[in-house]
């Protein structure tokens, strides 16, 4: 599904040049659950942003489903993104002004799904993450674990092929964290590819494979299964 080679990303300010990704090579297969680990500043988040088509690389190749996307413009990236990729963030990133239902509905609106259809699909996915009873609440009225379950629901409502999770348990206590990890595992078992950035060795153990990064490069790969 993902094949990255010689990928470079450099951040420049007037005086400092920071190499975030240094000729990075990496591959993720369909249906895999990959954890990316490494110390702060090693380039994990930059990698995730590029994988999620939120950011573009300065050099190198990024094949997504056998299509070279490294030089896509913003519109094309947005288009590809909304049909193929779901995001889960550490800080949930739900829209405060929208209810649980409306937050989850949002991706379907932007992909142009009909209203009746949307309702069915949102309810199904809310059911799946067991948050149906809170569908008319606003994010602030929920616990962190519940908010993250909503965020996961939003990430999968469009049936994306790939879910990118950026420290999904970082703001949660361990029992809520485990619930969310359980949820991601289930999704993976149903066929969704997952790439997750994490600091937690415990969470990383839910994955099939751990990629460790340092200074913008992959250093080791542990295969867990």
């Amino acid at each position, binding site marked *: 599904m993902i094949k990255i080679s010689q990928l470079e990303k450099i951040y420049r300010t007037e005086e400092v040049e920071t190499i975030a990704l240094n000729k990075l090579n990496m591959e993720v297969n369909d249906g895999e659950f990959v954890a990316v680990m490494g110390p702060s500043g090693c380039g994990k*988040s930059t990698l995730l*942003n590029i994988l*999620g088509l*939120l*950011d573009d690389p300065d050099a190198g190749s990024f094949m997504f489903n056998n299509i070279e996307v490294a030089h896509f413009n*913003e*519109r094309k990236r*947005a*288009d590809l*993104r*909304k*049909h193929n990729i779901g*995001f889960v*963030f550490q*800080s949930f*990133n*739900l*829209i*405060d*002004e*929208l209810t649980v239902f*409306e937050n989850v*509905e*949002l*991706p379907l*609106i*932007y*992909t142009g799904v009909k209203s009746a259809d949307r309702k069915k699909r949102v309810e199904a996915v809310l059911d799946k993450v067991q948050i149906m009873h809170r569908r008319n609440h606003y994010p602030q009225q929920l616990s962190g674990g519940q908010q993250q379950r909503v965020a996961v629901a*939003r990430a999968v409502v*469009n049936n994306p092929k790939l879910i990118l999770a950026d420290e999904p348990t970082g703001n949660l206590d361990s029992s809520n964290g485990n619930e969310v990890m359980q949820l991601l595992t289930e999704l993976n078992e149903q066929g969704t590819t997952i790439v997750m950035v994490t600091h937690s060795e415990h969470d990383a153990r839910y994955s099939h494979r751990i990629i460790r990064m340092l200074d913008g490069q992959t250093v080791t790969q542990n295969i867990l299964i």
Partner: protein
Amino acid sequence: MLKNYLKVAFRNLWRHRIFSFINIMGLTVGLTAFFLIFMYVKFELSYDSFHPNADRIYRVVCDLKTPTETINADGPSWAIAPHIKNDFPEIESAIRYTNASLLVRKGDIKFQEDNTLFADSAFFHVFGFKLLKGNPATVLKDKFSIVLTETAAKKYFGKTNPIGQTVLLTDGNFPSTITGIMEDMPENSIVKADMLVSMTTLTEDFNKGIDDQWGNYGNRTYLLLKPGTSAKALQAKLPAFLEKRNGDEMKKFQMYPTLFLEPLRDVYLRSTRDGSKTGNITNVYIFSIVAVFILLIACFNFVNLTTARSTERAKEVGIRKVVGAGKFQLARQFIGESIILCLIAFILSVIFSALLLPLFNQLSGKIISHNIFSHPAYLLLLFLTSIAIGILAGIYPALVLSSFQPVTVLKGRFATGVKGILLRKGLVVTQFTISIALIIATIVVYNQMNFMRSQDLGFNKDQKLILDTHGDSSKTALMQKVSTLPGVLSTSMSGSVPGGGNPGAYSQVENTKGEMQIANLDLYFVDYDYIPQYKMKIIAGRAFSRDFGSDTTQAMIVNEAAMKMFGYTTPQQIIGKKFDQWGRKGMIIGVVKDFHFRSLQEVIKPLSLRIEPNGCSLITANVSPKNLPSTIASIENAWKTMIPNRPFSYYFLDEFFDKQYRSEDRFGRLFLNFAVLAIFISCLGLLGLASYSTMQRTKEIGVRKVMGASVSNIVNLLSKDFLRLVLISFVIAGPLAWYFMNKWLHGFAYRTNVSWWIFVAAGITALLIALLTVSFQAIKAAVANPVNSLRSE
């Protein structure tokens, strides 16, 4: 998708209630002010366009050239209208009217009809006034025919049919017949009357032969041209017409009239011949500009507050982009929100306008409109304006917001760009420039009004009660009676009082070369007591005196302006020179110091004063301020016994004189109100911006406080930036206001300077208001506990 946008929009509005309020309020106030001024301007522009033939109606006005001067008279000679039609087939109708005040009696009911016109019979053919009863072709044909307005008719006849009924005119010798009833004349008409009397009443009875008096000027003449006629071409042929008809007389009297045709619709706003009685196109322009400015200020607020808030919306934008929103979809969402805000403001401003309309009518001194809902087209325009503002003001924030990169905003690595800040500062500067300029303008207007009121007029206008006897035969007896009443200090009788009208007379005065020089002199008929009573100053010669019997027929006093016009450099030189005026010949016996017999907008014109009991009808009574009501009651009593046929009325000279400044007064009041509004909206914007900038700097403030900054340090830090903006605005506004207000002042012959203190006052006012607005937020932020602000990071 729309539903989703609407939901977010309304929830956002509600969550940030205060800012929504500021935003919507600013827009509402701006739209309301804009709408009211728009209605006012539309009204001013609508004058006389209701006549179906408005495009073909022209007013004939006339310049009079004497060997001494050129006078811009308004009315041409009485003989023009009766004769012009015969010479020019392109003229469909020519009519005259002239103003009069007539006593009308019907049994015990009597009114002095001050708004009476003698009008030619084609009046209703030329003008589009609606006749409710009577035949338009004949109602004004026979002498002693009267057409009343609906309202006037009710005074005399109640619900009975007035047609064919008889009323008595003047002192009762002239029974006249009501031949027609017309609709009340609309407010936006330069022709205004409560009663029309057939012109034949004058030409065949009161003033026989006036139809052929080429040297008698001063009536109003209107032409209805046949379709397709060029007024310009016609005007070019008029000198030949005058020459042919009246050439000999023109040469004999050395009075050369030139006729001009003014399109009817231009008369109200563009003609300069009616002084301050009519509208003024400059004021219309000024108000239009003010309206646009206020709208601009409101729009700037809107842009400012919305972009300032973009930091808060950034997260939402980021999330929406991550889940698949395109730039265009986001831009559409934000423009949509902006339109919603504008629509709310639109609805509110319609409500406000409807509520404020009566007040605005009062402020502008006339009924602009009874009901805003009777102008659906105006409301539609306001609606479209609101939508347009929504789109225009929404575009910039929408572009800023929709171009946020989700990576940066979601990671919290977000800072507002320098460009956005610059734009916002620029908008604030523009707002305050406009506001300060308006403050300066308001002060200048008020200063000038004050100047005109306090200026030494050259006569005393205090405690003078004026009675208009309309030339009643008992006027002298009445004056004698009034002069004996307790509380009345002195009396005099004259034909004119300052601030009112006076005749202009064909005159010849001996000039420095010993020739009799022809000129048109303004003329005051007075009595012996008038000059001392008005405390006018005689600077050479003497005032009229009972000691000189010949003063009643052979003496004239002139003012300094007249003295100079005839070439004399010192007042003594003109004493003893000969005059010949309206059949009286004699000597100039004195020179009176120039006094303002018209408003201070006009230069003091050459004036002559003569004793002429027949020409006097106004009694001036100097009354003591003590027991004024009882004095007035006893004067009324005297009136009722001596002139029982006429209804009693009086006015005070000071108020009467100041009435000339009514339109300037209104102008000043409207200006003041809109300046306050502009400041208010600008401050709303400043308040919003200040609170956002303090919010953004919460962490900085916390850190500074931990490092030991005092409350005043912080307030200073936060206010400084905004005050600098106000100062920049002041630097721009000052010269602009100076330039335009100097231009405005040039409309006054006697005026104040735009002095430096006005700028200082305006600058300090703006600075204080801004400081108050900003420091409110700054103090709030400065006294907050730094622990809270730092913990939130």
